[in-house]
């Protein structure tokens, strides 16, 4: 089981993961589950009707737009990084937060490295399954590395040009 680190009220902490990630060739586990987009499209209504919380894993090649109408009932969107170099999930996260106003958890899964944490928080991720053994402290340091940022992003941090106006 990967370590699950959750960010709430601006602070990271190792947390108990209530969700079980279920691969497409596995039987649905009891309790809260994260399933693939394909499986969600086929079985999502039934799983939700069973009263459990459902999360959806979106691969980097898949469009989050496919979830647009389901977002209010999805507890977690797990965005996959097949390799850390594959930056599509940053756009997916930004769209979930900014375009769709998604308030649930956006979790980084796959090749999640500490050096990416700053970018991830900025684009709207709030949960992490680090692949490099990064601790809460490692991620916090990466997230708070820069005292200023130049761009508006999903984290609503004031960019340099806004700081300069004050």
């Amino acid at each position, binding site marked *: 089981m990967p370590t699950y680190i959750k960010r709430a009220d601006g602070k990271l902490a190792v947390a108990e993961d209530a969700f079980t990630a279920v691969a497409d060739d596995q039987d649905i586990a009891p309790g809260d589950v994260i399933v693939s987009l394909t499986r969600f499209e086929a079985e999502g209504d039934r799983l939700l009707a069973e009263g459990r919380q459902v999360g959806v894993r979106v691969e980097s090649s898949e*469009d989050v737009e496919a979830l647009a109408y389901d977002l209010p009932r999805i507890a977690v969107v797990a965005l996959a990084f097949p390799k*850390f*170099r*594959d*930056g*599509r999930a*940053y*756009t997916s996260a*930004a769209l979930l937060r900014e*375009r769709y106003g998604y308030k649930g958890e956006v979790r980084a899964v796959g090749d999640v490295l500490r*050096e*990416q944490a*700053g*970018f*991830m928080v*900025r*684009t709207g991720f709030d949960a992490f399954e680090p692949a490099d053994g990064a601790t809460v402290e490692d991620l916090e340091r990466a997230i708070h*590395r*820069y*005292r*200023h*940022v*130049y*761009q*508006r*992003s999903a984290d609503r941090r004031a960019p*340099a*040009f806004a*700081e*300069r*106006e004050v």
Partner: protein
Amino acid sequence: MYRYDTLDREILADRSAEFREQVGRRLAGDLTEDQFKPLRLMNGLYLQLHAYMLRVAIPYGSLNSTQLRKLAWLSKTYDKGYGHFTTRQNLQLHWIKLADTPDILDHLASVDMHAIQTSGNCIRNVTADPYAGATAEEIDDPRIWAEAMRQWSTLHPEFSFLPRKFKIAITAAPKDRTAAKVHDIGLAVKRARDGAMGFEVMVGGGMGRTPYVGSTIREFLPANRLFSYLEAILRVYNRHGRRDNIYKARIKILVAALGAEEFARQVEAEWDKVGTDADLPDLEIARIRGAFAGGAFETLPPRSEAFEAAKASQLAFARFVRNNVKPHKKPGYAIVEISLKGIGETPGDATAEQMDVVADLAERFGQDDIRVTHEQNLVLPHIRLDDLPAVHAALAAVGLGTPNIGLVSDIIACPGLDYCALANARAISVAQHIAERFADADRAENVGELKVKISGCINACGHHHVGHIGILGVDKKGEEYYQLTLGGSGAEDAAVGQALGPALPYERVAEAVDTLVEVYLRERKDGERFLDTFRRTGVAPFKEAVYADVH
């Protein structure tokens, strides 16, 4: 010039601290080279054939004397006493020790410089017209927009892991000195009929294995909508650019696959959704504009007696003026190009001593302003005509008086097999041999504008596709061979060159260029450049002459 404020400086300091920590982990063995590679590449640090190479960013090719002196000092202290100016207006130090890099970044940060995003699959240093703020041709000062793009692209959270590297160029003059049409995005400042300022947006140009001239996807983008539009382009690219094959991952491949019209449609659709939230407030643009305003120009007569007298009495000075001195927007001033293409030298290299001299001249005579051109030369953009003789003498004294800007010996060449792990063939020595053949300055001037560009491999760092004469090094069973192309251009008349014929061995390249030039001199009509003649006659007469002895 733009001056970094506390915020800009704190971002650099934080970057430097981060890298020091990463290098520490690598040196302590906590990171393998494989794990360290993406981290060093975020800071412009490459591992080359012989040593680490650090690529220092020179945003939009603009430097002050303090910065250039610092680069000189770094090259003396941590390298072999010289640096290499690149086609992206950056500076490379080729003999760096890993353990020194954190200190080097700190020294750079102390003069508001860095190596951020000079490598990696991110938005790279923005190219801008080296004559910005000095040429009368420009509609606006492109540095304003380049600086705004520098900030916007720095550590961009969404666009730091693109399918491939991403290069933007901006020009505001009809004569394009940025190669905008062979960049991922080329921006040309335009004015609408009602006087409103905006940009023509060209996308998908590029070189490498599959060269393309960029397609215009928007004729006129209102200036205040630039950043939302850039976001839309980058977002479409980030999502849909290919990631399965490094050689098909640039935006040009996506634009070509979709067709420019369909690509434009997708960008416009995304742009509609992005809305104005992503645009930079007018106030910030005004702040940056203010930093570039003015310049301390005196009111001078258009004619300088000292300048005219020196021109009349000194042949070398007169030749320098004809080739390296360009008109300035203010009467009594001139733009001075400094050639880093001394005959027999390595194109783009400058010694620490030369950098110091240029810095001194900029400080004393040139409003503390220095530019780097994408053709690997330097520019003093604001020199009084009265001071030109003194500037020329000081340059000539350190081997920087070569009067060959735009001429056949003003060659772009990549580092090639002498430095680069990717190269198939040498590029620098080919450039040197060609330059030596045209060492006779009268002959070179008679030939006129002729852009020779040499790449040591198919990655095309030497821009051979857009050379009037392009030269590409290939490996033929372990031997260095060279394919010649003719008729390319990276300027406003951009085109990809066409092949001349079978590749030539190393020893025959300079001679072949000589033959091509002789054909041109024979065929040319009034006022035609090499490129014009070639475009009129086609390849036939050139091909016939070069391969004559093979038949």
